[in-house]
């Protein structure tokens, strides 16, 4: 599929406050550091540097009894785990993030999206990756219109 090749057509019609897709990396990194320093419920046990590949913003923290780890991938996405289980994060066009567990709002950073997912997870439960991927299956195909 075609991805934006230039910034020109993407801005018109946007909310004024919306940053460019992907978000500025520096802001993301600041958000991560702020997150690690936040006193409420977050208990940073491992240093950022120790958990992250060199040059990438990452996080490794305990939040509400869960270990959250995240690292940027070369493709611009994030690999995030909750207690070692993969949490699927997705990007919005305004540069914010959402997870499969918290799907109807989005968050400024991958860490914020991961924490929001933990907020929704019941005690003792974990994210589960699904075996299906968007846009390729046609399980209900073959019908025409409302009037089928």
């Amino acid at each position, binding site marked *: *599929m*075609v*991805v*934006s*090749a230039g910034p020109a*057509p*993407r801005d*018109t*019609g*946007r*909310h*004024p*406050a*919306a940053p460019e*897709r*992907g978000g500025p990396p520096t802001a993301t990194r600041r958000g991560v550091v702020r997150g690690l320093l936040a006193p409420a419920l977050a208990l940073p046990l491992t240093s950022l540097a120790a958990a992250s590949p060199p040059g990438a913003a990452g996080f490794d923290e305990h939040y509400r009894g869960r270990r959250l780890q995240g690292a940027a991938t070369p493709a611009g996405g994030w690999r995030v785990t909750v207690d070692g289980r993969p949490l*699927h994060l*997705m*990007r*919005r*066009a*305004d*540069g*914010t993030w*959402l997870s*499969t*567990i*918290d*799907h*109807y*709002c*989005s*968050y*400024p950073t991958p860490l914020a999206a991961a924490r929001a997912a933990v907020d*929704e*997870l*019941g*005690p003792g*439960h*974990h*994210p*589960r990756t*699904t075996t*299906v*991927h*968007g*846009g*390729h*299956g*046609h*399980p*209900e*195909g*073959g*019908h*025409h*219109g*409302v*009037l*089928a």
Partner: protein
Amino acid sequence: MAYSRKDVSTLTRAERRRFVKALLELKRRGEYDEFVRIHIAYYVPDGEDGLRTAHMAPSFLPWHRRFVLELERALRRVDPSVSVPYWDWTKDRSTTGAPWTADLLGGTGRRSDLRVTTGPFAHAAGHWTLTENVTDTEYLTRDLGRPRAPIDLPTRRDLDSALADPVYDAHPWDSTAAKGFRNKLEGWGPGRGSASWRNHNRVHRWVGGAMTGGAAVNDPVFWLVHAFLDLQWSRWQRRHRGARYLPAAPPGRNSAQHGRIVARHERLPPWDVTPDELEDHSRIYRYG
């Protein structure tokens, strides 16, 4: 002869019982879980590559119209008298009234783990184990009104602000579109946090639990929510005579949205149908 979709608060005791029974039968047969799978699979956000059909796209409304219709067809194969009722959350705003009664969807989840413990979809009743999910939770969860950080259901006024927009959808055809009925109804508002949850998105949040995630279909209220949204599309069409689904033609090659959204006469996966063919439901069902 078109059948009727009714306001859930007006269903008779027998209608409630038959609707629930048909849902449980689809679940028993494994058909229901296919709907959960499809919804998870087709959630492609607008910051990711690829074709978006179900969310953050113009086809949010026709996609869900067809999706509800497929469920309804399955229900009617079980019991031809059944249709999907709608929940008017601008009117029925209590956490204990319709549709949250024990003879319909059951109530909110218990405090410790949000597990729904009342009604036919409570796990302990033995008929509603979640198998397709984004977490390993096997029981239905809800958190009506989110007591730990309360939010309100969207209001009549919120709905009216979407219905007042005379344009169906607008550039850039995604969750950041500041104009257009579709995005205002889907509810991706500007700003962060709860300010950005409007109409559809806000209802998902208000119900909470399973409805917060990609596997929202695991909560049968999903269908009642989307039937009401579907009704809004019809109301919008009546209010703005002649207004059509947009875009009418696919975005050009130079557009960032080229190949990522469905135009009026393009096929809407996973079905072999176009938004154009889904704009008028009056020969199939009507809203009572």
